[in-house]
């Protein structure tokens, strides 16, 4: 019996990735890209879409062949699958969405090394059927996306005074002595912000490392 796509259990899989077990705030994975690509909302969004697609797709593939993968070489098989999916997407973007692919530039390659992708493969796809694996990939991807976009909005707004490339802080503010916060543009600024986001999220969700 196939269960409904959005049954209670399946909803929980998505919700876990989004909130309870959010890859960034709970598992503290994918920090590198969360710092590197969040200076602007646009790049953050593109990276978020890319990572969500890759996580969901490779989760499905690994889940389909999970019973055949020899456990000795499972990590390298996972890595091969992830790289193949990423390169495939990159090639298709270059052929059909050239402008998008130019914007993504180095990020596509960065997805291969993103711990979230392999983390989900190892933790979930290896022991669950494809449909669940897909939802898990989607949930985690979306959880990552939320944090990334939040960071992107805060950093772009306070670091450059723009949102989505448009100036939103009025010129009169600058004339009155307001200055963009240079720290926001740099990686350390993202570190502080990310720390605050993790703190806030954890206090709301009630997670504590000390049980």
């Amino acid at each position: 019996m196939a269960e409904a796509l959005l049954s209670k259990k399946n909803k929980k899989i998505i919700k876990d990735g989004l909130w309870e077990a959010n890859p960034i705030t709970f598992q503290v994975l994918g920090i590198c890209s969360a710092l590197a690509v969040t200076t602007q909302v646009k790049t953050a969004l593109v990276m978020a879409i890319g990572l969500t697609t890759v996580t969901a797709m490779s989760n499905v593939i690994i889940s389909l062949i999970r019973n055949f993968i020899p456990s000795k070489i499972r990590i390298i098989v996972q890595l091969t699958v992830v790289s193949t999916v990423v390169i495939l997407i990159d090639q298709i973007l270059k052929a059909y969405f050239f402008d998008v692919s130019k914007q993504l530039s180095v990020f596509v390659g960065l997805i291969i090394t993103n711990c979230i992708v392999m983390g989900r493969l190892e933790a979930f796809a290896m022991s669950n059927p494809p449909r669940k694996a897909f939802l898990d990939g989607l949930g985690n991807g979306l959880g990552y996306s939320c944090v990334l976009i939040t960071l992107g909005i805060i950093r772009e707004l306070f670091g450059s005074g723009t949102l989505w490339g448009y100036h939103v802080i009025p010129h009169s503010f600058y004339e009155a002595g307001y200055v963009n916060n240079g720290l926001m543009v740099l990686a350390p600024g993202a570190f502080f912000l990310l720390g605050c986001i993790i703190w806030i999220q954890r206090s709301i969700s009630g997670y504590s490392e000390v049980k």
Partner: protein
Amino acid sequence: MKGNRYTFLFAVIVCVVCGVLLSAVAEGLRHRQEVNAALDVKKNILKAVKLIEPIPPEATPRDILEIYQVKIDEKVIDAEGNIIEGKKPEEIKETEKNQYPLYIYHEREQIVAYAFPIAGQGLWSTLYGYFALEPDAITVRGITFYKHGETPGLGGEIEKEWFQKNFEGKTIWSKKEKKLTPIAVVKGHVEDIYQDERADFHVDGITAATITSSGVTALLDRWTRIYDPFFSRIRQGR
């Protein structure tokens, strides 16, 4: 636990499947990708020379190619600055070291700009772009960077309009000292550093991208000097 033979076999199958899949896709899409890349280069030449009537946003690839064909003359020059008649940039062989492409933009028989390709090392990657001068061979008309692998938001800002706009109207020739002054990128704002003629040879830098900025300075120095034999003749009215 499955045996070693199975493990090896599985590894080989995974490699072959992924390898074949990727090569097939790459080969199948190569033509489209090359067409895209070639079109992007032409778009960037048109952008560097700042067309008097800008390309409308709804222009199709074919429209862009047509505008390019009508308005841009492709030439090749040698190290002494002579135009090699009848030669096109794509005909330059890799073994021919001292030959450089030059793109001349004209409107109604009048030359409006000269553009040439620039390339050099940034922080993570090689930066590729075009640099265009006004017919006086002194004033910068435009610059573009169309390919690079710099950090987005930091070094990646070189592809942004604010950075490229920076260059427009600057000059590569000091009238006071009668010498070539390739444009250099400063740290911070030019007006805070230079109040004299030198403000015309420098542009604002990118915060937190010092190495990319000095890469731009170095590549502009190099290519401005390489093309100078040609431009100095124009300046002297020859």
